[in-house]
């Protein structure tokens, strides 16, 4: 049983790390801001689920597993929201730059 749990955790860690690594490569290689954010935010959620799932399997049925579940829920709520806010800010900044002169720097 322990061996099965360990193998399952390792598989989940492997998947999570691979997904996050691919996301990082995407952020470096994609051409525009929006495609970069698409790469980062999608892989962020899946990677978080996989890695935290692996840790939860290791923690077993305990208070620590419940806390990890709370952390996972928090991450799943806030990470897409911040990506949305970032994309929104980018759209608004482009609109504002198109309408007015660029802001002076000091």
């Amino acid at each position, binding site marked *: 049983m322990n061996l099965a749990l360990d193998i399952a955790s390792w598989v989940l860690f492997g998947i999570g790390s691979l997904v996050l690594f691919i996301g990082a490569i995407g952020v470096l290689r994609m051409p525009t801001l929006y495609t970069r954010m698409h790469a980062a935010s999608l892989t962020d959620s899946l990677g978080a689920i996989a890695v935290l799932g692996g840790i939860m399997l290791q923690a077993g049925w305990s208070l620590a597993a419940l806390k990890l579940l709370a952390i996972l829920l*928090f991450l799943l*709520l*806030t990470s897409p*929201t911040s990506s*949305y*806010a970032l994309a*929104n800010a980018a759209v608004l900044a482009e609109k504002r730059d198109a309408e007015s002169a660029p*802001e002076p*720097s*000091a």
Partner: protein
Amino acid sequence: MTILFALFLLTMLVITAVAIVQTTDLFAAVMLLGIFSLLMAANFFVLDAADVALTEAAVGAGISTVLFLGALALTAARERPAADRPWLPLLVVLVTAATVVYATFDKPALGDPNAPVHQHVAPWYLSETPRLIDIPNVVTAVLGSYRGYDTLGEVFVVFAAAIGVLFVLSGDRPVGDVIRPADAPTTRGLKHHLIPRIVGKLLIPFIILFGLYVQFHGEYGPGGGFQAGAIIAAGVILYALLQGEGRALAALPEPVLKALVAGGALLYTLVGVVCMFLGGNFLEYSVLAADSVTGQQVGIILIEAGVGVAVTGVLLCIFHAFAARDPAH
């Protein structure tokens, strides 16, 4: 495995620091500073400092980023590259680096249990705390009870910072611009964006609840007044960012914040004075209850509450001082 992880974290710290100093875009530098703080917090956790990791994450990666962004919004976002020669600063830096590296060769290796720092006072704290104070978190015991004077001084420093910021940023405001109305264009915040507003409304109660949890569990796990104050202030700042600063000021108005700041410091000092009235020395909590161990615990809970309240008030005062400043100068 832990060694590899620690090495990786330390190397990432240096790379991030170089990136921060080299970039000319100040917004990017502030974001990188947040990443730097988070890496530093992870490093502290690897080095067994759980309380410090929590504080660094809450204060460094959270509050500090907000303050820098607030200041940047009022000044400039981009730094023009310096045209002057950096040879003299580089020389000074290299000479200083050589001196300090020479000094590090005398240091004991990491984790050596026979290092001088582990010899005299620390084993006494670790062995006597279960007998004298009986709370599991030794760091809170040292912070609150054995070194209570230092923590009182720290509360006063935070208090002085709030007074200083209010003093510097409150005078000489443009006429009629003291507190802008809640629906003025610049205080709209993200009101017209539904998703962050809804998610924020879902999360803010839990953030404040978590802050209270950290406050009251400071004796049993990592936590305490400073971390709790930073977390609760972060929750209120999130509300201010989402709903507009005017609504946040309506929720917790300026006089209340100032009362929190002064009240926290006053609570801490009052606990000390009450101890004197009950026959002990200043901040000697043993006299606060019938049994000395219970008295110590009561004293620590009260002063941690004072610290938490003061830090919340201070961080919110400073945030509002920056946010209410009119950038159209």
